[in-house]
């Protein structure tokens, strides 16, 4: 038995079924939140803001809003997916099964990333109702979308493994990720900030994600696309290394 394909299938299906059964929470809720952002920022406030680098404000915020949803949903889905079996004790079955850590990752992280991709497209469709949209580089847009979903699902998986209570599960998404996304240029261009803040902002990794993603839509970016891509790939590699180490040492999984 070289690859346990059946195990990957059942974990993936189980996680997707969980999202389907809690559709309101999994899919409808992020769409409603994003629609509200469009109404408030895009229509109400956005109508009084000039174009940013040639792009109407309502349209300009679409990639940022998608990123906001993708990051938070990827982390939430993946962290809960592994935390809950740990919490209830059912994780014993996965840990005693003939399955490698890569297969566990493909199952759990693959499902979490898939859900995020679906949410991303639903939000994109929703945005189309509010603002005119054109995607300059669809392949790049798709690549950034997939890489972001996979990377942040991996990050969520790490949080789910690390957390030993519900408070910790919420801690990083609430106190770290959400501020980073809001301060990462979701609703503005970094060039709109005072020079000092522009420099500080460059230490925020989310800036690179949003910038690259926005470039794929409008060919407008705060940093170069190559740098954005390199940052995503670096973070992906870092997350993979951390998960590998966690499984190798049995961190919070095995005593």
């Amino acid at each position, binding site marked *: *038995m070289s690859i*346990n*394909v*059946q*195990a990957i*299938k*059942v*974990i993936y299906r*189980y996680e997707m079924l969980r999202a389907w*059964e809690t559709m309101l929470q999994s899919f409808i809720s992020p769409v409603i939140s994003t629609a509200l952002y469009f109404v408030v920022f895009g229509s109400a406030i956005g109508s009084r803001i000039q174009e940013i680098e040639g792009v109407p404000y309502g349209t300009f915020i679409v990639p940022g809003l998608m990123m906001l949803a993708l990051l938070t949903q990827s982390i939430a889905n993946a962290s809960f997916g592994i935390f809950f*079996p740990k919490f*209830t*004790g*059912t994780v*014993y*079955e*996965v*840990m*005693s*099964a*003939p*399955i*490698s850590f890569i297969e566990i990752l493909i199952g759990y992280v693959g499902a979490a990333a898939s859900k995020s991709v679906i949410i991303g497209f639903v939000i994109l469709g929703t945005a189309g109702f509010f603002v005119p949209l054109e995607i300059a580089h669809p392949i790049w847009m798709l690549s950034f979308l997939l890489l972001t979903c996979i990377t942040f699902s991996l990050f969520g998986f790490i949080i789910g493994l690390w957390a030993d209570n519900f408070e910790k599960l919420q801690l990083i998404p609430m106190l770290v990720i959400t501020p980073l996304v809001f301060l990462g240029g979701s609703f503005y261009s970094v060039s709109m900030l005072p020079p000092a803040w522009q420099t500080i902002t460059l230490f925020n990794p989310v800036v690179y994600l949003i910038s690259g993603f926005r470039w794929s839509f409008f060919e407008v970016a705060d940093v170069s696309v190559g740098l954005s891509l390199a940052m995503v790939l670096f973070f992906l590699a870092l997350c993979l290394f951390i998960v590998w180490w966690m499984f190798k040492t*049995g961190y919070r999984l*095995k*005593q």
Partner: protein
Amino acid sequence: MQPVVSISDLSKTYADGHQALKNLSLDIERGEILALLGPNGAGKTTLISIICGLVNASSGTVIVDGFDNVIDFRMTRSMIGLVPQELTLGAFDKVINTLAFSRGLFGKKPDPVYLEQLLRDLSLWDKRNNEILSLSGGMKRRVLIGKALAHEPDILFLDEPTAGVDVELRKDMWALVKKLRESGVTIILTTHYIEEAEEIADRVGVISNGELLLIDNKQDIMHQLGKKQMTIELEETISVIPESLSVWALDLSDDGRCMTYTYDPLNPHTTITPLLDSLRGAGLLLKDINTTQTSLEEIFVNLVRK
């Protein structure tokens, strides 16, 4: 015959310094039912958890059917089914789905016919579409057994399978275990209940403080460590045992009505007839004679106390 599981010098020390296993070695024979007895904290669950891959051993090896359980974990784990002590189940999962999940997790393709038969054997077929949340404790325990058997394992570990289970269900469980053994499955169970070991096990191992104190055929343990007692009830009370009977080391009850003779049934020098002759010679009239054998429980308690 090569043992199906061979454990050599297994030790486990947890991060808090607690040494749960101390150089434990054990061979489990193919097709047997082995009961591991031991008080709480003896190391039984740690031992099972290491074999199943849930806990990392500090040192020592576990070989399952010729494969190392760390290096060849895919081979060893696919042969093993585990029923944990706690009722750890997804509350909102349907019974049939959770069994199908377990089967897939262990790399087996879906087999609805096998799962149907398994659920029927466990008297759960009628509940197949119920959420686990709605099941009784006994049914949940059976679902756990079903999950452990879903991938048709050769070796089944049952960690205190009848803890908190009523008598009727316990007997059902014993019948199921015996049936599984008949189908060729090797079964290792841990238990607090001596009667469980007495009822279904072929061999009994006693673990205490991380060490295997004893492992042997159940009957041999009873013979080797068990004592028999003969209680002699007298027609008339006596105040002291007659001098002529001192060689038999009899105990006299407080009311002077009964004498107790403790003997080793395997000792070839133990004979009852000379004692009865001596009693007659001492002029004592006997009302009744009763013999009892030390239970496995008494043997277990004595071993652990040492």
